[in-house]
C-alpha cells in the first residue's frame, strides 16, 4: 500500500509552515506529498473525498508515555501508537520512564525495534534519560543515546535536582544540539503535594503543590541555559509565572522553548472536586483529574492561552500517561498521576477555538510546525516532497467521549462523558492511512 498513490480531494488545506490556506487537493505518491492544488486527478489512486474537512500536517506530540518495556499492563507501544493515530498524531516522542528506563543505547534500540515491528505507521521518537536510572546522580552517555536516535533528554517525572548535574547535562546536550526537555518541579517544595495549592486543596483537605515549585525550576533551567548555551525545552508548563519566565528568556534571545497540555489549558483545579452535573455537595476527589503538574487556577489558564497567542508557547503536548483502573480506583492521595490524552486532545483543544480563545491556525501550528521546529527533522509541513504525514479534521463534528471505545489501554481521563466538538477523521502517516473514522469517504 505504501507505494500506491492517494488523492485527497476538496480539503480545506491549512499548512501553518507556509501560512497557506486554500481549498484544494493533495496528491500523495510513494509516501511523499507529490503536489497540492486544484482539480488534481490521478488515475488509479485511492481517493478521499475531504470536502468539509481540514487537511493539515500530521500532529506531532513531544511528550507521551508508551510504558513499554516494563508497564505493559498500562500500555504497549502498539496500543499507544494506535491511540496516537486516532488522535491525529503521526510523530510522537516517548518519555524514558519505562522499566528499564531509556538510559542506554541497548534499551533505546529495543524500543525502536518494537516500534518498527508493532507500530510501523506512527513515527516513534524516543527521549533518552539525563541520568542513569533517572536517579539524578550520574549522566548517561548522551552521545551514544543521540546516535541511537534519541531526540532529546529528560528524566521527566524525576527532574534532576542537582543543579551541577543539570548544568553538565546541558553542556553535553549543547554539543549534540539536542534539547534538554525538563519536567520542572522543585521536589523539595512540592513534596507530598496532591494537587494545585489553592482554595480547592484547602476545601478537600489535600496538600497543595505551589506554582513556585515549577517556577523555581524553570528559572534555574533558564539560568543554566544561558550559562551553557544548550537548548532548553520546558515541557507541560502549567503556571502564569513560568509563562512569563519563558517569555522573558525568549526576549533575551535564549534557546528556550516550551509546551503545554490540553488538560492544563482547559481544566482548573476545581475539576478535582466537581464533576460536571454532580450535586454541589458531592465532592468528587476525582483521581482522573490527578495529574502532575496539577490542574491550576483560571488565572494560570488565562496566562497560558496568552502565551499561546503571543508565541511564547511553541507547542501543545499531550503528556499521554495511561494507567490501570486499579491505580486510579483508590483514595486521591494514593492515586497515581496522569491522564490518557491522545484520543481526546484535538476535541478538547477545539473548545478553545470554538470559544474564540485561540485561532484554529494557531492551534494547528502548536500541534505541527511548533513541535517540528523543536525536533528540527523537516516534519510538520505539506510542502511537496515532504513525508506524507497528514491529518484530516472535522472541526464541527460533535461526539461524546467514552473510554470504553479507547484504543489506549489507559482509561484514565477527566473528559469521559464530555461532549466535544472537533474530530480527527483520518490520519495519514508516510502516505498510509494509520487511522480513519467510519465517516471517512474513500473510494
Amino acid at each position: 500500500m505504501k507505494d500506491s498513490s492517494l488523492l485527497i480531494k476538496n480539503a480545506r488545506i491549512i499548512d501553518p509552515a507556509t501560512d497557506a490556506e486554500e481549498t484544494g487537493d493533495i496528491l500523495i505518491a510513494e509516501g511523499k506529498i507529490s503536489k497540492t492544488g486544484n482539480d488534481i486527478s490521478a488515475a488509479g489512486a485511492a481517493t478521499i473525498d475531504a470536502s468539509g474537512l481540514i487537511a493539515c500536517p500530521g500532529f506531532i506530540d513531544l511528550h507521551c508515555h508508551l510504558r513499554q518495556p516494563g508497564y505493559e499492563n498500562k500500555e504497549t507501544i502498539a496500543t499507544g501508537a494506535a491511540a496516537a493515530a486516532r488522535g491525529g498524531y503521526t510523530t510522537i516522542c516517548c518519555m524514558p520512564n519505562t522499566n528499564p528506563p531509556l538510559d542506554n543505547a541497548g534499551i533505546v534500540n529495543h524500543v525502536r525495534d518494537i516500534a518498527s515491528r508493532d507500530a510501523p505507521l506512527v513515527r516513534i521518537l524516543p527521549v533518552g534519560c539525563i541520568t542513569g536510572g533517572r536517579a539524578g546522580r550520574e549522566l548517561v552517555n548522551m552521545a551514544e543515546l543521540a546516535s541511537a536516535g534519541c531526540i532529546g533528554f529528560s528524566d521527566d517525572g524525576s527532574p534532576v535536582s542537582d543543579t551541577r548535574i543539570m548544568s553538565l547535562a546541558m553542556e553535553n546536550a549543547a554539543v549534540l544540539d539536542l534539547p534538554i526537555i525538563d519536567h520542572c518541579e522543585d521536589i523539595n517544595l512540592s513534596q507530598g503535594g496532591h494537587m494545585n495549592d489553592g482554595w480547592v486543596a484547602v476545601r478537600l483537605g489535600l496538600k497543595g503543590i505551589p506554582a513556585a515549585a515549577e517556577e523555581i525550576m524553570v528559572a534555574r533551567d533558564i539560568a543554566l541555559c544561558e550559562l551553557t548555551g544548550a537548548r532548553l525545552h520546558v515541557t507541560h508548563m502549567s503556571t502564569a509565572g513560568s509563562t512569563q519566565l519563558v517569555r522573558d528568556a525568549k526576549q533575551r534571545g535564549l534557546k528556550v522553548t516550551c509546551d503545554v497540555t490540553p488538560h492544563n489549558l482547559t481544566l482548573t483545579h476545581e475539576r478535582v472536586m466537581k464533576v460536571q452535573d454532580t450535586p454541589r455537595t458531592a465532592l468528587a476527589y476525582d483521581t482522573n483529574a490527578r495529574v502532575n503538574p496539577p490542574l491550576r487556577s483560571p488565572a494560570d489558564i488565562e496566562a497560558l492561552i496568552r502565551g499561546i497567542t503571543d508565541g511564547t508557547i511553541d507547542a501543545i503536548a499531550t503528556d499521554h500517561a495511561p494507567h490501570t483502573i486499579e491505580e486510579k480506583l483508590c483514595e486521591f492521595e494514593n492515586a497515581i498521576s496522569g491522564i490518557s490524552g491522545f484520543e481526546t486532545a484535538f476535541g478538547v483543544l477545539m473548545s478553545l477555538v470554538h470559544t474564540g480563545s485561540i485561532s484554529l491556525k494557531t492551534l494547528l501550528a502548536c500541534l505541527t510546525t511548533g513541535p517540528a521546529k523543536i525536533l528540527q527533522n523537516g516534519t510538520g509541513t505539506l510542502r511537496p516532497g515532504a513525508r506524507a504525514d497528514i491529518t484530516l479534521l472535522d472541526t464541527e463534528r460533535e461526539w461524546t467521549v467514552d473510554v470504553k471505545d479507547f484504543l489506549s489501554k489507559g482509561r484514565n481521563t477527566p473528559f469521559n462523558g464530555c461532549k466535544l466538538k472537533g474530530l480527527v477523521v483520518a490520519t495519514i502517516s508516510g502516505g498510509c492511512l494509520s487511522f480513519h473514522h467510519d465517516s471517512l469517504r474513500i473510494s
Partner: protein
Amino acid sequence: MSLSESRPGTATRETLPGPSIDFWKHRHVLDLDDFSREETDLVFEIAEGMVEILDRDVKKVPTLRGKTIATMFFEPSTRTRASFELAAKYLGADTISLDATKSSVAKGESLIDSLRTLQALEVDAIIMRHPCSGAPYIAARSLDTSIINAGDGCHAHPSQGLLDIFTMKQQLGDLKDRKVVIVGDIMHSRVARSNIWGTRHYGMKLVLCAPPTLIPHGLPEMLEKYSLNHVTIEHNLDSAIENADIIMSLRLQKERQQSGLISSLREYIQGYQINMSRLAGAKPDVLVMHPGPMNEGTEISPDVAYGTRSLIEQQVTNGVAVRMALLYLIAGGKNR
C-alpha cells in the same frame, strides 16, 4: 424497623424527643458543608434528648434494636471509636468493629474491597475513619450503605464539629456575636475544617489562630469563595483571645517539628500554648475546649485542661449524645 416504630408515639415515645425529622435528607454524614441550619439544629434538639438518656441509670433504649452498625477504622483511634460504639449500643444496635489498620487492609486489600465486604454483611451503617481525605466519599459512591465520616485525612470530622458546636451552645446559649478561637495546627486539622462549616449558621465569629506555616495558603481564598465571612485568620494568639468566649486548642503532632513546620516545641509553646498566664489576657469567664487527644504541656497546660474553665469532659459526654442523634437520624428509619 420502620420510622413510625422508632418515632415518638410507639415503643420509644418515652425515650426519645419528638421533633419532626421529615426534612432530614441525608443518607450519609460526610461533612457539615451540606448541613443547613435547620438540620444542624435538629441534630442538637435530638442530642438534648439523648443527654437526658445518658443521665439515667439504665441508658439503653430500643430505638435501633435489630440494626447493625459497623465501625471501620483505617487509622488508630480510641476516643471517637468508643464514642460511636457506645452511642450505637445505648440505642440498642448491634455493633461490629473492624480494625482496618491491622486487618487485611494492611495486606494490600483495597479500600473498596474492604467496604464491599462490609456491605455484603448487610450492616445498616458504616462509621468510617480513614487517613486519606475523601475516602468516605469513595465509600458513599461505591456502596448502598449509609456512611458516617468519623474523620478523613485533613478534610472533615463532622461529628466532632457538631459536638463542639453543641457544647458551645450548651454553655453560651445563643451563639450570635460570640467569639470562638481555634488555635493550633489548622493546616492538618479536620476538626477546624468541620467547625468552619458548622459554625457558619450561628452569627458568631470564628478566629483561626496559628503560625503562618500551619495555615494552608489557599485558606483565605476558600473562605472568600464560600462567603464564610464569620471566619478570620490571626497569627498572634494574645490578640486573638481578646474578648473570646471560647478558646479551642488543637493537638500538635510531634511530626510537625520534624518536618520543619515549627522550628521548636519551645517556640510553639511560647506562642500558642493555652495556659493560665495566657488566659490572664482573656475574659475572666473564657471557656476552653480541646477535641482530644491532648498533648498536655504542649498545646495546653494541664492546669487549664483540668481546670474550672475546661469543657473537655463535657465534650466527651456530648460526643456520645450527638453521635446517638446522628445514628438515630441515619439508621433509625426511612432514610436508610
